[in-house]
């Protein structure tokens, strides 16, 4: 089974990289993008085919390593 984990900064956490990208888009003349927040995507191949098991496994992976929960949220998607 394939899975995707998306890690994003929590609301209210300053994202200087997102701000810089936002500025670069504006300077390219790409209008209409009000704000940019940068995050990370992890694409994974899982050994299991069981969705409940996969979900638990990935949540554990996020809590232990993939996300720093002081500043980041995560979302698990099973594909």
């Amino acid at each position, binding site marked *: 089974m394939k899975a995707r984990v998306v890690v994003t900064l929590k609301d209210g*956490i300053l994202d*200087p990289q997102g701000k810089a990208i936002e500025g670069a888009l504006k300077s390219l003349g790409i209008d209409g993008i009000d704000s940019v927040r940068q995050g990370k995507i992890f694409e994974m191949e899982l050994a299991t085919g069981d969705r409940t098991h996969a979900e638990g496994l990935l949540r554990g992976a996020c809590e232990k390593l993939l996300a720093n929960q*002081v500043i980041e949220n995560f979302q698990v998607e099973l594909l």
Partner: protein
Amino acid sequence: MKAAIILFPGSNREQDAIRAIEKVTGKKPSIVWHGEHALPSGIDLVVLPGGFSYGDYLRCGAIAARAPVMDAVRAHATRDGLVLGICNGFQILVEAGLLPGVLMRNANLRFVCRMQHLVVARNDTPFTSHYDKGQVIKVAIAHGEGNYEADAETLKRLEGDGRVAFRYCDEKGVVGGGANPNGSVNDIAGIYSENFRVLGLMPHPENLIDPLVGGTDGRGLFESVATLAKAG
């Protein structure tokens, strides 16, 4: 004093830390590889040196914080052992949960490498007894992710309990403003654990040991630890 320096793949300031400790205490620290499960016996101080452990992959310090040796470091801290995390070592300590908060990308997105003044917030801790309270010291900084952040509640607790160790200031000791190199909240350069025996800081006191290379303002930190270890 018996000190151990933890070596991760990508650490690059361990020699500076070894030299600083040897110069101040006359004893060479042990080097402990990140894959070890135990520290040598009778260690007073564990140092997590600066560098770019695991190439800063994922988040700075994130992978090193989960290395096998970190369980032993955590146990050492639980036993009221002394732990010093410098630069990447500070990032590893927050990722390991031994200190609160997080070190974000510098607010101006630039790697800063320069001399920096700090004010010593208090001198009644294991790491600062050889300084004066409010003393301004000049040390080196070199980091891209030193922007300390914590949620409002954590920050209130840190400030309330006097757990800020050093703040960025100018040469006159005026804290913050243009003297803050990375956007750290409350101009925080270093913080203590609840029992004041774990210190994490972004600046490099270990580089300011010998007058030949710019000053000796970093010596006080190692002298303080050595004095305490001797007394203990």
